[in-house]
């Protein structure tokens, strides 16, 4: 009981630390690839503290509540994902629940920013929803493949079965789905070439354009969680999770750095190009994986 409580408290804290470290790291690595020096790795934390105490503007109750809903949703998702041997609450609904609770993040931000009158907001929300439909098609196929293969809907169970039979990424036929997942990972994380939602140069960060002060601080925390969730799911589902948080972190780090390399060199898709790409190769691979799993093995 005590251990469970510790886990429930420790999981979001660890997730936040990992996410925020990744945010800082990404700026550093990107800068180095661009031949710049870059800000210190602690910059996001400094920003959050600074922004948090600044005065800010709000458009009303929905503007406040949407951000809170989004952040509360992120914390709930984090608690449902096994983090290196810590399964805080991962047995109360499984992957299907995670899939649904993850919706609270974009919906919360969309509701909140929807109170503004800025056209960039509407464009950004529309792009976010379209893009998520784009990557959800292959993602659902991939998750169905895993759930069919391991005959469970519980993510903790998928992790523990991989401990017995080896990583899904290196097993036949699941590796096909693993590749598909890696191809859509930048879209899930909102990295290039799929950063149409924030698209700084076009729609000046889209839905977040009117946020300042503590709202922006909360959104940065939300980003950190989103980064953690996207990569942690991949590690849990395909890289066999980990027996302790340190190994889990190392696996996440490797995946994230790979994504950053892609992020550094690609230009941005238009939204319709992004959908076309997502519904072509990743979906074809994911479908092949599902067919192979359900009919051949």
């Amino acid at each position, binding site marked *: 009981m005590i251990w469970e409580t510790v886990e429930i408290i420790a999981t979001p804290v660890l997730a936040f630390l990992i996410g925020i470290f990744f945010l800082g790291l990404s700026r550093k690595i990107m800068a180095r690839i661009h031949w710049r020096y870059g800000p210190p790795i602690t910059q996001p934390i400094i920003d959050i503290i600074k922004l948090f105490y600044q*005065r*800010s*503007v*709000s*458009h*009303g109750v*929905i503007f*406040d509540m949407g*951000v*809170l*809903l989004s*952040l*509360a949703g992120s*914390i*709930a998702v984090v608690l449902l994902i096994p983090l290196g041997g810590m399964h805080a609450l991962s*047995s*109360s*609904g*499984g992957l*299907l629940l995670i899939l*649904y*609770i993850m919706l609270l993040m974009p*919906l919360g931000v*969309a*509701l909140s920013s*929807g*109170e*503004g*009158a*800025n*056209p960039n907001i*509407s*464009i950004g*929300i*529309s792009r976010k*929803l*379209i893009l*998520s*439909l784009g990557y*959800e*098609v292959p993602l*659902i196929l991939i998750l*169905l*493949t895993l*759930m069919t293969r391991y*005959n*469970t*809907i*519980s993510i903790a169970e998928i992790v523990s079965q991989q401990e017995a039979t080896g990583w899904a990424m290196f097993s036949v036929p699941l590796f096909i789905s693993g590749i598909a997942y890696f191809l859509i990972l930048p879209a899930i994380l909102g990295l290039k070439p799929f950063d149409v939602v924030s698209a700084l140069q076009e729609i000046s960060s889209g839905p977040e354009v*009117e946020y300042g*002060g*503590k*709202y922006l*601080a*909360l959104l940065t925390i939300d980003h950190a969680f989103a980064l953690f969730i996207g990569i942690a799911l991949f590690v849990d589902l395909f890289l066999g999770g980990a027996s302790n948080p340190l190994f889990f972190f190392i696996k996440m780090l490797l995946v994230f750095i790979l994504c950053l390399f892609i992020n550094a060199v690609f230009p941005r898709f*238009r939204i*319709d190009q992004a*959908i076309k790409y997502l519904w072509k190769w990743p979906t074809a691979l994911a479908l092949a994986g*599902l067919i192979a799993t*359900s009919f051949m093995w």
Partner: protein
Amino acid sequence: MEILPLMAFGGAIITYLLGKISHRLRDGFAVSVSWLLVVLVAFFYGTQVCTTYYSGFFGLPFILRMNSLSWLFAIMIAMLGALSITFSLSYMKGREKTNFYYLMMLLVNASMLGVVLSGDLVSFYIFWEIMSWTTFLLISYNRGPAIAAGMKYIVMSIIGSISMLIGIFSLYASYGTFDMSGVGAGIASASSGYILFILILFSITFGIKNAIMPLHTWLPDAHSEAPTPFSAVLSGILIKMGTYGLLLFMYVIVGSKLLFSLGSGILSFQYILCIIASITIVIPTFIAVLQTDAKRVLAWSSIGQVGYIILGIAFGTSLSFAGGMFHFFNHALFKALLFFTVGAVAYQTKSRDLNSLGGLAKRMPVTFIASLIGIFALIGIPLTNGFVSKWLIYKSLILEGSPFLAFAALIGTWGTILYSYKLIHNMFLGQLPEKYKNVKKAPLSMQIPMVILSGGILLFGILPGIPLKVINGIGTSLGFESLSVTMGGYTSETGALNIINILAVMVVAGVLVWLFFRAGGKSKRVAQVSSYGAGASVPTDKYHYTAEFYDPFSRMIKPYFRDVIDDFYNWIAKGARETFDHVRHLYTGDVGHYAIYIVLFLAFLILVSLVWFL
């Protein structure tokens, strides 16, 4: 037992007569009789009654019966009927022919009650027909294009009725009884070909009412033309009469054991129904994304959601059956709620066009919250009832080895997010157009039904055990295994569901985040345009970017998602009309021509008889 239909039909007629005296009296009576019906039906919970009256039609027995299945449908009918009558009070105020409207609304509810309570096929058919015709009259209530929509509905409905009539007569010819339990006993020994024939005949009837693809084409037109309180009934419960019929024939009359023996693997009755259901989920969902009329979005969405219900029921494991039944229950709540909110917005702004509304959240807060809860349930966000039912369906599809059906269902959900978010964003968020600056909030009689339904959605979303217990009772009475239902979901070795945990996590996380939020720097309320314009004045109504909300996406999918089936039916209708137009030219009005026709016909008969006999 007979008190229920008597009161429902009698109430309708008395309401009409009272309307001749005073509108106020009529409104009061209609509301009280419809709520009284809810209370009466509620009293029948858990009872198994079957009463036979011999005074019926042509001396045929008239059987009324109540069991757990018909109770669930009856309570939903009574509940939605009462809510929509309440909603009508202000919605219909000042319109023409309100007496007729109330009569028809109450008659629809009464006839639906009759359908679910009847225990023999003749009264089932008669109530079914009353339902179809009153629906027709209500759809065409607004005249103009509504007549065409109503015609489309009634033509399809008549095709369904004919199919049902053939089925009923065939059953009577085989077993000599109209009693459902008698037919059930007789059909147990029938050949599987005959059972299939009967099931297909009735599936056409119920499929049309249920708007399953490809029999759905009447529904989008009917919804966009019908008065909104009736749309709520139509989508919430009336199309589910088709579901009731399917349940009745699949699981009550034929029975699950016989049903599962019809064919094997992919080529079985239930699996083909599953495939049709999954098509019904996916295609209408994406068509809904392309719509710009709020009620049309909801109409297409209804078709899609019905797909989930049929998928769950047809898949036929105890888990998926519970999911399908629960989704029926949930859909009735949230779709009625969404129609009410759209109705309230249309009542206050006189518009349902998603490209021109916007920013109404502060003007109509209750309607906004209700519609938010409605779309959350429609999407299936945890803590609303829609999540639980979809979860049950997905889980059983995945673990019973049908990942492709599960894929169709899940993709439907992600399409649902697109159109339902568009619905709420384009009505309530974004910029408030100048002409809606003075919109008032919805009247009380509209807010009460919305609040009741929102409360129900949250209650049954957090404590799904309440309806699941009833549904589990239905499932076991139809021969399914019993599920171990708990208050917060259900337990199982292959993955349990515990909503209470989720609630606790969300509440604690929410409170923590809120406390954290409070600790931060002060924030100041500013007007919508002030941060965007940075103090400068922004030209009003110039930058309304919610119009064509998903334009890049719509342009991509539009060529692939046309309602081809509707075009096909229209083509047949047009062809038929032209053919009959030509046939009409035979009637020239000239006696000489008619004389020639007679002579020619006689000559033809003589020729035939010559050939025949020689």
